[in-house]
């Protein structure tokens, strides 16, 4: 059975690093893996999505609407944009952060209110303030790994497997901080 994961966010939030960690983990676990990324223009602050699929044999590299087992959203509005990709019974992890798109900054549209509350009525959502936790441990940049740590709770791999792949994927100087960030997310509970 092929499993589908999506990582969505705003260009520059580190979706590519996150998907590389995930890809490495799945390869190590012996799965056939395909990942699909966005490079180029959309990376300049646009909406970005990375698809990750794994199983015994994977054909297409993209996750289609209604088929994601897990969606990791680094920003609230992006969670809303891609929520319809989640399958029934899937899990949506949302980093509780707001980044205004230019259409909101210039007043052409409004940033939707109460996104997380609305999504919670329709699907299984776990919200986390990754940025706050990252600042607490001393580096705002690793908020994405905190969020990945939260998502890892809903996947079938051991903490040790994750740490192993983070150690070999991120730049050597940042290993300690990234592992700390991952564990902060992994060991947190939703209502703290």
């Amino acid at each position, binding site marked *: 059975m092929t499993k589908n994961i999506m990582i969505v966010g*705003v260009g520059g939030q580190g979706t590519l690093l996150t998907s590389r960690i995930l890809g490495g983990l799945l390869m190590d676990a012996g799965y056939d893996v*395909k990942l*699909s990324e966005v*490079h*180029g223009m959309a990376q300049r602050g*646009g909406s970005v999505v990375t698809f990750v699929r794994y199983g015994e044999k994977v054909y*297409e590299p993209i996750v*289609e609407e209604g088929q994601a087992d897990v969606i990791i959203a680094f920003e609230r509005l992006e969670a809303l944009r891609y929520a319809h990709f989640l399958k029934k019974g899937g899990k949506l992890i949302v980093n509780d952060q707001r*980044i*205004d798109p230019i259409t909101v900054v210039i007043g052409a549209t409004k940033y939707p209110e109460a996104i997380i509350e609305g999504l919670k009525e329709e699907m299984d959502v776990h919200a986390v303030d990754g940025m706050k936790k990252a600042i607490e441990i001393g580096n705002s940049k690793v908020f994405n790994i905190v969020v990945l740590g939260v998502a890892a709770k809903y996947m079938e791999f051991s903490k040790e497997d994750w740490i192993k792949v983070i150690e070999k994927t991120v730049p050597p100087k940042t290993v300690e901080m990234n592992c700390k960030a991952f564990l902060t997310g992994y060991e947190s509970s939703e209502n703290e």
Partner: protein
Amino acid sequence: MSETKIMLGNEAISRGAYEAGVKVSAAYPGTPSTEISETIIQYPEIYAEWSPNEKVAMEVAIGASISGVRAMASMKHVGVNVASDPLFTISYAGVNGGLVLVAADDPGLYSSQNEQDTRLVARAAMVPVLEPSDSQEAKDFVKIAFDLSEQYDTPVIVRTTTRLSHSQGPVVLEERLNIEDKVYERNISKFVMMPGNAKVRHLYVEKRMKEMANDLCNSPINKVEYQDKKIGFITCGIAYQYVKEVCPNASVLKLGMVNPLPRKLIEEFAKEVETLYIFEELEPVIEEQVKSWGIAAIGKEIFTIQGEYSANMLRERVLKEDLSLEKAKDVPARPPILCPGCPHRSVYSVLKKLKIHGAGDIGCYTLGAVAPLNVVDTTVCMGASISTLHGMEKAKGKDYIKDWVAVIGDSTFMHTGINSLMNMVYNKSSATVMILDNSTTGMTGHQDHAATGKTLMGEDAPAINIFQLCKSLGIEHVYEVNAFDLVALEKMIKEEVNRDALSVIITKSPCVLIKGLKFPNKCITIPGKCVKCGACLKPGCPALTKNEDGTVSINEIMCNGCGLCMDLCKFGAIEKVGTNS
């Protein structure tokens, strides 16, 4: 045991080149092809360069091939247009060492100005095309392409698409082949394409393409998978994966060679299946040929020409499933924008204030076309800013372009902008050209070029001085200015657009995403001073947010401390402070 590694399609292509024994690689960056060159430099056996444009890259690869080594050029689909002059003729001449062009198409226009299909160019140039469908095949097909190139005396195109280039999948690594250099022998009738020789070679090209169409019917790169014969698909590239996903039991003819088409193989397959679908992204290249042979098939009647394909497209249009997927309504769009601290934003804020139109070009600064900047009026292709502005002046006269400038980046200027500027000098233009020099090829992910002082392989190189280059054309009015010096910039632009002579303004400030650059400052708001005028918000910096009460706050993580908002604030409500990091 052989090693398996997860690789981007593009990384697998460069691995394929390495294993095929390639010695020379030349390219100009362009999404989605850029990572081919960026990853090929891990192999010291290969000389790899960024050339100033795709025509030069193609010719470098051609020269290497003629000298007897295996050589590769890589570029995006529109780059193939720039390289089409050498491509069309080297198709006649053929090769000595194997010659492969990797062309990366962009269905769905993730980062391009059009959605053209390289297979049509290849048909016109009479060049064979292989199209892989995942990372493993990307590597394998590059190696096959080099063999075919030498066997059939032809350049070979490996066509990829954004989805393939930017998807990762497992790849089994093999050793590099030990390919001996071919002996170079002077062969005027083959390598000098003047009319008498080219006529003979044209006949050879016709014969070659017929032979390949015939011979490759038996090649494993074209795969027939007979299962349930009620439905049959002819497909290629990434589209194959969607077919396997949705119709795992259908019969499939997966074409690895998409030009020329293996006709006999297709005719046999068509006879075996009841309903034949042709599922190919972009143009109906396979479909039109197959239908012209009198074969009934369903293709673009139900599938699109525009855009990327998906498994859901097959579910809806072939299986007639009602997916009725409900999207959230009224989700604000999030288009790409210039980064916080981008020097282009500063330049555009001045052009906007002066109500000047920009004849635009290809790069991050194309984003000056959209709100809130709305400065760029035109974008066609690499280098076109300067020449289109010249055309306007010649059509309408000097006064007509007093509120126009051409805006072009440094890498794009070195690509083909320089030709257009030579034309302005020669044909007596009075235009104002602005070269937004941010010291890198920004949009494609920060590649070096002839004016940065570094090569693709990381060596120091002479940095061509753009100021001196313009001066050397005999242009009297060439100026350099800091992109963030709003006062100097405004004065200079006003003077130059009103001058009855050609002038070049080079704004020099590096891209904020260049690796290793440090930003020691950030901007903060001073409580109580904001009068809610909104002047700082006008250039659309994403680090700024308008609060509920109309005042402004600055996101300290996003801010790079460029000071543009501070300079635009007349009430001293924003100041620049140092950071410790």
